[in-house]
């Protein structure tokens, strides 16, 4: 469904991604793991169009995305949850969700999408009239994911959805992500919680210094010696 082919990205003179290629098949839950500053977030930002690579291609169902501005890519079926959630704190929970369905097609299906999101995150339904700024950390992350689902994406990009949450909440959020994937949404997950991510996913890529250095099933990577020593020690 998604293919990235030989992406190069520079921040000024500094290379952030070099020759990055990866694939996500329909229905998969794929993780992208690696140390801080390896290029995980940059990769997601290239896919969602917030960053344009200087070379390489991003293909969604065979269609190149290079020329599409970020606000169009949402309508093509890719939705992103930014690092830290970045909900609109001054708006209500419901307004945040409504904005998730901003595109013309998504707007028509708004009520149906809203019911779907509330079925996954019942807490959001209880809090819908509240200002998003009053939510707890876990609820904010639920809102960020729910907001991204409102566009009915084919592919959901998640940037560290468990960051800064208490261990119990991490488990809960990751379970919800599995459930979303089970309901047919393809997921590309960036996680700093490597063990949890690898236990969860079908397949994972390991990225270091802007290069993909490993790929395999979650189980295989878990037993991979260098990964064990680098991330799971």
């Amino acid at each position: 469904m998604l293919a990235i082919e030989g992406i190069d990205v520079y921040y000024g003179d500094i290379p952030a991604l070099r020759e990055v290629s990866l694939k996500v098949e329909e229905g998969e839950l794929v993780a992208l793991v690696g140390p801080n500053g390896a290029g995980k977030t940059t990769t997601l930002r290239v896919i969602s169009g917030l960053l344009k690579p200087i070379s390489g291609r991003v293909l969604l169902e065979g269609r190149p995305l290079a020329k599409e501005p970020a606000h169009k890519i949402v309508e093509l079926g890719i939705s992103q949850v930014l690092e830290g959630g970045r909900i609109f704190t001054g708006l209500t929970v419901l307004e945040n969700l409504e904005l998730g369905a901003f595109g013309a097609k998504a707007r028509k299906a708004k009520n149906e999408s809203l019911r779907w999101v509330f079925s996954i995150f019942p807490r959001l339904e209880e809090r819908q009239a509240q200002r998003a700024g009053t939510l707890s950390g876990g609820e904010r992350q639920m809102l960020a994911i729910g907001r991204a689902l409102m566009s009915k994406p084919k592919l959901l990009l998640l940037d560290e959805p468990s960051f800064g949450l208490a261990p119990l909440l991490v488990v809960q959020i990751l379970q919800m992500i599995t459930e979303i994937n089970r309901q047919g949404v393809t997921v590309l997950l960036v996680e700093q919680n490597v063990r949890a991510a690898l236990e969860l996913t079908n397949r994972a890529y390991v990225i270091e210094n802007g290069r993909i250095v490993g790929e395999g099933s979650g189980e295989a990577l878990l037993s991979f010696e260098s990964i064990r020593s680098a991330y799971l020690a």
Partner: protein
Amino acid sequence: MLQELAQKLVFGILVGGLYGLAAVGLSLIFGVTKFLNVAHGELLMIGGYAAFWIFTLWAVDPFVSLPVVALLLVLIGFVLYKLLFARMVTLTEDNKIKNTMLVGFGLSLILQNMARVFFTADDRGITTAYSGASITLFGVSIPVVRLAGLAVSLICLLALHLFLRKTYTGKALRATVQDWEAATIMGIDIQRVYLLAFVIGAALAGVAGALVAVCYSISPTMGLDWTLRALVVMVLGGLGSIMGTFIAGLVLGVTLSVVGGTWREIAALILFLLVLVLRPQGLFGTKEG
């Protein structure tokens, strides 16, 4: 003595509504785009002259021609945005403020001088059949046109408030103010949001200018005064609150009116500095917008 004070208070409130209206336009543009358009006062001036000529040439009542003036300013705002401001969208926030200020100063000089060439440097005002009418309450006189001006200001602000709260586009605008990147990945084309905020701000300035032409007087050089007042009110009110900005307009109007004479400008600036030092988010602003 008490009656004199009450009279000053009333005059202050009446002119303060126009300060509020002028400032809400400036504040909307600044809040959304971070463009500090120091030619905002010139947009008022253009609105004022538009209403004046429509009245003088075709005898159309200035309150009736308000929608036409607003539409004209939407067009002018559109052209100015596309010609001058659109290219600054990608700058950092600091550079946006600096560059738009420079462009705005240049623009204000051009517009001022053009107005002087085409319309002469004379003060103008719109005098309708009802211009002299006033209501007297407890010995305090309330000019009817100024009262109507205040009412129009309030209606405009209420309409803007409803637009921002109730419509999809309005919510997109508020979302863009908070986090343009998150707004972008919702599918919001922030370039269009910026343009929209700019033309709405221009239209509000146009309406304010037309009201100034009816209630007071206009001249080619009026712009700078109005830009400064709008800036003071914007800071007083704090970003992100329409009602806050409007009330700040009333506060400034009353302050200037009560202090009066040569001290008024000084009083306004002292008020401005006090707020900057003591409450930089403004009297009614919140950190979260």
